[in-house]
């Protein structure tokens, strides 16, 4: 197989603008003030000042993290989607398509995508990978996450930005995840509706106030809810417990009828991560991103994660919204054996 090495790295504003002028298609992550100074061109961008660079986890407002899409991706097209037309994001994918997306956190399009992506028409027909834009945690009460395209350069908290492209017949793309969390041995938890916010839950089939339950078991909310999707663990991260209203808020929606358990506790993220990361995929990764909660709770600043770089995000997208998960996409050539 041909090894594909991607440009995935932190760059100065000047370097980023030079790349934009070269006409390459780019996915850019950076602080709002930097993104406002980007030249128009073939890019999509989202706000975030946290990154996993080759030297380890870093927070900076002075550089952008730039992913250069490979030249062999054909028929590239930049589009925006609002809360109403995001449902078409899979339908608009091209034949042998590959799709990159950034959605601003806490926007209506974020909520619609999170709740409904799995039931969007053509879900899963072609890979859709990306992330939820965020803000510096110091600014969380003063500003909003934003996205932009290089067509206008206008930063807004209103629309998802997408690059749709097509792979040649000789190549294929696959999205996969590294989730270091597994279901613990505790109670089975189910919810009564699809929602980012819940009051009650069924704990081993018995209805209880969920905030009260978490308090009673003294749950450490750094450890997410985990659902078993046919052997792959899908997390729902805790955002907060609202003790005034006795409600629990999440960073992704829980789904009615799905069985969740609180995650098994773990001590050392980096060791566990290195153990879980499929080594054979590392050289084929075109893009990856990891979660701000993994960055914070596992203190990833200054630590490396086995050759994986990318933005540190307010949510990860691998076909649907994911939490506390590393998401990556590989592009490979078919082998002769696979062509038989």
């Amino acid at each position: 197989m041909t090894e594909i090495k991607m440009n995935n790295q932190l760059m100065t504003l000047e370097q980023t603008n030079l790349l934009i002028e070269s006409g390459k298609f780019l996915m850019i992550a950076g602080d709002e003030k930097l993104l406002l100074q980007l030249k128009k061109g073939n890019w999509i961008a989202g706000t975030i000042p946290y990154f996993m660079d080759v030297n380890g986890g870093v927070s900076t407002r002075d550089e952008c993290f730039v992913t250069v899409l490979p030249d062999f991706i054909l028929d590239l097209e930049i589009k925006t989607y609002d809360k109403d037309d995001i449902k078409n994001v899979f339908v608009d994918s091209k034949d042998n398509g590959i799709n990159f997306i950034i959605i601003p956190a806490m926007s209506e399009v974020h909520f619609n995508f999170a709740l409904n992506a799995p039931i969007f028409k053509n879900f899963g027909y072609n890979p859709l990978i990306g992330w939820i834009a965020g803000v510096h945690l110091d600014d969380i009460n003063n500003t909003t996450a934003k996205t932009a395209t290089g067509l206008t350069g206008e930063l807004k908290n209103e629309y998802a930005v997408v690059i749709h492209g097509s792979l040649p017949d000789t190549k294929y793309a696959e999205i996969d995840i590294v989730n270091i969390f597994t279901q613990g041995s505790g109670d089975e938890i189910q919810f009564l509706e699809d929602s980012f916010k819940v009051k009650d839950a069924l704990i081993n089939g018995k209805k209880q106030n969920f905030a009260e339950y978490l308090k009673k078991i003294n749950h450490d909310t750094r450890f997410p809810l985990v659902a078993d999707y046919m052997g792959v663990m899908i997390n729902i991260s805790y955002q907060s417990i609202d003790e005034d209203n006795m409600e629990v808020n999440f960073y992704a929606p829980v789904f009615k009828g799905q069985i969740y358990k609180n995650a098994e506790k773990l001590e050392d993220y980096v060791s566990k991560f290195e153990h879980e990361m499929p080594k054979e995929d590392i050289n084929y990764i075109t893009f990856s991103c990891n979660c701000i909660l993994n960055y914070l709770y596992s203190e990833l600043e200054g630590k490396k994660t086995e050759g994986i770089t990318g933005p540190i995000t307010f949510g990860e997208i691998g076909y649907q919204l994911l939490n506390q998960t590393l998401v990556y996409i590989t592009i490979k050539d078919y082998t002769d054996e696979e062509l038989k």
Partner: protein
Amino acid sequence: MNDQIPPATNEKWQALILGLDYKNFEFFPVKLLLARLQLKVKQDPSEENVLQCSKELRQLFVKNQHIPKAKRDLDKIFKKKFNFKRFLRRRR
């Protein structure tokens, strides 16, 4: 090529949808979709809904049958290989 993949009425699709059969699938979107479809039929186990969910699952494989992990997953369900060269010729 689509003809090579058994129709949605095939009982193997339905066994997966109803959770009566379990395969250790590799292809990530298959796991996501199948988990959602199993929830959907838990809430509405009518024949029509099971058939509709089987169609959705089958269509995901139709669209991804050239991807090695999806091909291997199809083999796990139906224990037969697909002619990828013929698929490419038809696409061109």
